[in-house]
Structure formats: structure tokens, C-alpha cells
């Protein structure tokens, strides 16, 4: 069994309630942190090497240390629970089963940052979890972990849940802040960064659910101990959301550095490919990251075993590598049509583009139309090249990373599976079942 830090009590009945959570040693990190200075807590997180678990992998301690601290200006901690990256469902799992772990992490992190108000921005589709979190927060208030003068230390913190209303873009931190301010989820133009001007133009740290939860074991065991877990600069454990054509889909906590092959095939994790078919491709880090064909999923371009870590998964760059991203691990068997799967992605990004900047607004829709045209058997070879050129003109040219996220899967699908696109184009009669296509805006107009 691999090391478990976040899900170690996953099988304890009632762990979602305060009493059981506390019995299992819950809120110890708050007790410990409140005896330290806030800078000492930040230092532990820095030493831990923890990297943002939302997808970008930016070192958390460094992000915290960028937080501006002008006199008399409130600071905010905002938890990004807008989990919407296709293939990712680990934050939902964590919040549903371990709400107090998140709340504990939020308190410890807020203390470290000197924030007296913290918000959990959760995607609106997760409303049933709003109930769960509201209940857990209530319990934490009652037990004296939230509110004024926490545990008699003089430190005060209020915590609120804020539901979104259906917009992937609100996972981008500045769009999230706009949405939290009651506006359209349009990403802000940076700089300034949230660390300087975030929520209500005050210094703000936005962290992913899993990142904040990881602060708990880091403070408990110490940053140095945490850094010993994992491999190289990929320290600690990571929740992986495994889905697609595998025998045992679900959320798994792995120690970073686990071989991809072991993750897919061992009984402890995915249990192998569904119906014992052959592996065709893997999207290892959520829909935005490049798809990898089977051989490049299991082995790096130099023939070494591919590991579940930030570094190993990106080895080979975008030519032959991918990214750990959010840990949304989508497995496709040999029967899967890469073109159709790509179409679900292009449709997704088209639907989710906020429409603020021109390359993304126009380009995502164009890419969806072309993938659909190819899928429909009406594509030409020129369309494949056009698709390539469009993604190239979007990437890097947009206000926020959604443009890149829309471009990368298109580029990787063509890069690794061009012959499949050509097959769709040159032999459309071989394609069956392509009529299933919907106008996403039908319901609104109905």
C-alpha cells in the first residue's frame, strides 16, 4: 500500500462528522499552527515542496510568500472548489467524504496568511456538497475552530461557502474572484495578480481544495518530512481521478513517482483495462493536457518507465510528453475513436469560453465545427491542417489559460493520431454512428 495522507481515514465510518474526525486526530494542525508564528507555518509549507494541485503545479509556499501585506487592508484566502476540468473529480470526493479536512486546512492556511475571512468557491453543480460543507462549518464554529478568538488565541476567522452557477472558466483564479464578486466570470488581465489585488482589490490567495487539504499533514508532520515523500520536486501524495476504460474507476491517493503502468494495471489502483482490451491512449492530467498514445504513456521517450510525477509526465515536452495537470486520468481502450473524444473536448471548450478575447471566443467554436465536420465524414485533408493552424494561433495569445487548454488537446490528438483523422477524411463510409450531435444552446432557445 502506498502512503496515504489525505485519505488515510477514508474507510472510517462517520469521518464526515466533527466528532469522528476529531477522534481521528482532526484539527491538530490548527492547534499546532496557532502555537507557531504565521511565517513559521508558511516556512513549513515552503519546505514541503507542495505544488498547486489544481493543475498548474506552482509551488504553494512561494505563492503564499508573494501575498502583499499592506497595513490595514484585509487579506483573503479563497478555496478554488470549482473543479470542472473534464476527467477530474477528486475535490468532490474529498469535500464529500472529508469536509473537515478542507476546513481544517483552510483555518491553518488562513492563519498562515493572516486572513480573517475565507471563502470556498464551489461549482454550482456541486450544490449537494454545499449542504455538507455548510453543516461541517457549523460544527467547526460550534467547536470553537471558527469565529472570534479561536481557541483563545485571539485569532479570528469567518468562513463561507459560495456556490458558482455553471462556468468552467471560474476555475481560473481571477475569473473565480470576479464570480465571487457577483459578476460574469471573465478572467482579469494580469498583472496585477491576486496576491496584490485579488478579491475586492485586496491581497488574496486562491488555492485548490486538495492543495489546502495537504497543508494539514504538512503542518502535522513538518515540511521536511513531507518533502521526503514522493520523488524529486514532486513531493507528497496526489489524488488521481481515474476514469474511462478501466476496471476500477475512482479517486486514488498515490505517492508521486508511482509508475503509470502500475497505476493502470495493479489491483490496488485501476485494475487494468476494461474487458481486458488493449490500452490505446491516456489523458493523464485532465482534458487540457496532451493525450499520450499507449507506448508514450508507459515509457518516456528515452525508454524509462513513465512515472506519475510533474517531471516524468512532462518529459519529452509536448512532442512526446504531457502534464500531471489536475490528475484527471482518462484511459482509452483500443476501440476508442480519438477524433470523437477530441470532439467532446472541442465542444467542451467552445461551450466554456467566456468570450472576452477574440482568439478563444472565435477559435474554440471554429475548432469544434471543424472536428464535427471531420467526424461527420465531410472533412478534407486541408481541414486537418487548418485545425492545426487554428490551435497554434490560439495558444499563448489569450488573456487566460483557457485558450491554451483548448489548443493543447487538439495539437496532441493530431500530433499522435493524425492517421486517424486522415482515415475519417479519406474513408468516411467506414465511420458509423456520427449523427449524434447536439446544439448546446437548444435548451435555452426551447
Amino acid at each position, binding site marked *: 500500500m502506498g502512503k496515504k495522507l489525505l485519505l488515510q481515514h477514508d474507510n472510517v465510518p462517520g469521518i464526515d462528522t466533527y466528532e469522528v474526525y476529531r477522534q481521528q486526530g482532526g484539527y491538530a494542525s490548527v492547534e499546532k499552527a496557532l502555537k507557531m508564528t504565521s511565517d513559521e507555518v508558511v516556512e513549513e509549507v515552503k519546505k514541503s515542496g507542495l505544488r498547486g494541485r489544481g493543475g498548474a503545479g506552482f509551488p504553494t509556499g512561494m505563492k503564499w510568500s508573494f501575498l502583499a501585506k499592506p497595513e490595514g487592508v*484585509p487579506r483573503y484566502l479563497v478555496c478554488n472548489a470549482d473543479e*470542472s*476540468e*473534464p*476527467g*477530474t*473529480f477528486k*475535490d468532490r470526493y474529498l469535500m464529500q467524504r472529508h469536509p473537515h479536512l478542507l476546513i481544517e486546512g483552510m483555518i491553518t492556511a488562513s492563519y498562515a496568511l493572516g486572513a480573517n*475571512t475565507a471563502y470556498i468557491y464551489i461549482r*454550482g*453543480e456541486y*450544490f*449537494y456538497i*454545499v*449542504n455538507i460543507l*455548510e*453543516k461541517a462549518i*457549523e460544527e467547526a*464554529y460550534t467547536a470553537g475552530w471558527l469565529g472570534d478568538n479561536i481557541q483563545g488565541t485571539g485569532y479570528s476567522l469567518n468562513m*463561507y461557502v*459560495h*456556490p*458558482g*452557477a*455553471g*462556468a468552467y472558466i471560474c476555475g481560473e483564479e481571477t475569473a473565480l474572484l470576479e*464570480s465571487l464578486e*457577483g*459578476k*460574469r*466570470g471573465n478572467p482579469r488581465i494580469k498583472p496585477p495578480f491576486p496576491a496584490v489585488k485579488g478579491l*475586492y482589490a485586496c491581497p488574496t490567495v486562491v488555492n485548490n481544495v486538495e492543495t489546502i487539504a495537504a497543508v494539514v499533514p504538512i503542518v502535522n508532520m513538518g515540511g521536511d518530512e513531507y518533502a521526503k515523500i514522493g520523488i524529486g520536486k514532486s513531493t507528497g501524495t496526489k489524488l488521481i*481521478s*481515474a*476514469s*474511462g476504460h478501466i476496471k476500477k*474507476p*475512482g*479517486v486514488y491517493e498515490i505517492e508521486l513517482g508511482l509508475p503509470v503502468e502500475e497505476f493502470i494495471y495493479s489491483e490496488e489502483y485501476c485494475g487494468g483495462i476494461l474487458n481486458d482490451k488493449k490500452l490505446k491512449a491516456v*489523458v493523464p492530467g485532465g*482534458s487540457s493536457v496532451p493525450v499520450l498514445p499507449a507506448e508514450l504513456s508507459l515509457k518516456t521517450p528515452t525508454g524509462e518507465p513513465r512515472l506519475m510525477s510533474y517531471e516524468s509526465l512532462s518529459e519529452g515536452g509536448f512532442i512526446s510528453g504531457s502534464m500531471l495537470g489536475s490528475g*484527471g486520468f*482518462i484511459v*482509452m481502450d483500443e476501440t*476508442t475513436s480519438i477524433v*470523437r*473524444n477530441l470532439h*467532446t473536448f472541442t*465542444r*467542451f471548450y467552445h*461551450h*466554456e469560453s467566456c468570450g472576452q478575447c477574440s482568439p478563444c471566443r472565435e477559435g474554440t467554436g471554429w475548432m469544434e465545427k471543424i472536428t464535427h465536420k471531420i467526424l461527420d465524414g465531410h472533412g478534407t485533408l486541408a481541414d486537418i491542417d487548418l485545425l492545426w493552424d487554428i490551435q497554434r494561433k490560439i495558444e499563448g495569445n489569450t488573456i487566460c489559460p483557457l485558450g491554451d487548454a483548448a489548443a493543447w488537446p487538439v495539437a496532441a490528438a493530431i500530433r499522435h493520431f493524425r492517421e486517424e483523422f486522415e482515415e475519417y477524411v479519406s474513408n468516411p463510409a467506414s465511420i458509423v454512428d456520427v449523427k*449524434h450531435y*447536439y*446544439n448546446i*444552446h*437548444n*435548451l435555452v*432557445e*426551447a
Partner: protein
Amino acid sequence: MSEVKFNDETLAVVHNLIRRYPEGRHKSALLPILHLAQAEFGGWLSPATMDYVASILNIKPVEVYEVASFYSMYNLNPVGKCILEVCRTSSCWLRGADDVIRHIEKRLNIQVGETTADGMFSLKAVECLGSCGTAPMMQVGKDFHENLTLEKVDELLTQFADEDKHSRYCDANTYRKN
């Protein structure tokens, strides 16, 4: 429709929600209040409903329209009592979401985006709901129905029709009281 006005219980929740944000930042409460309004006033946001929310928050009506039309969970047109939202993005598609959608279309005799003649069901195909490991799935109100099979879908549809289910994401009890 009856007058657009929250009852006292919901109004208390609304004021609680507004207090969650700093003085002068009450517009922050717009999203949660719109959710409550949609749940209470017929499952969709009519211009009258949105104007009412604008008046509660003392903001311009156009600010509400801009926001409401941005987010996919707000319905700006009348919908069926029970909205079936079937996820169709990658992982769900890999595990048969298309079959689920086709099955519902056939059974209810509507297409995605349509509402049954009796106004009971609306069918929506939606993008990733974070239930990829339990695909295929559909959301009905705040409930996730996961690991769907066609049989399970049939059972659910019968059950929803029998109990005249109204799908709602939230209600006055969603939030803690203080």
C-alpha cells in the same frame, strides 16, 4: 405566475447571504440569490424575477441580466418541472453517455434541448459534472445519479414522474442559519 417576492423564511436566508460579504460588497451575493430565486419562482429566471433580485441588491437590472446569461445553470426561459442533465464529455462519453441520451430521447419522445408536451421533463446534454469515475451520470436538481444503465434510467424516470419531481439545486435550507 404569482407575485415575485420571497417568503419571509427565504428572505431571511437572503439577508444572511448578503451579510457573508463585506459592507458595500453585497453584489457578491448575486449568484446564490439567483439560485434561490430560480428555485422558488418556477425553475427559471424571468425578467420580473431578475428585476426583483436587482432591487434586493440595489444594483442595475442589466447587471443581473449580464450575470444570469453567463452561467449555464440559470434558465432564462421556462423549462420542465424536472430537468434531466446528462453529462456527455469525454469520460461519460467513453462509458456510454450517448446511449443514455438516446434512450431518454426515445422514451420521452423529445430531443435534447426540448421539454415534454406535459411540461414534466426537460432534457439537457451538459458538459463535465465531475462524476467521471461513476460515468455515465445525470444530474437532477442537486442529486447526482451515477453509474447509469438503461434500466436504472427507466426506473428513475418512472419514479420522477410518479412523485411529480421538481428539480431544484437549492432551497432555503441549503445554508446554515447564522
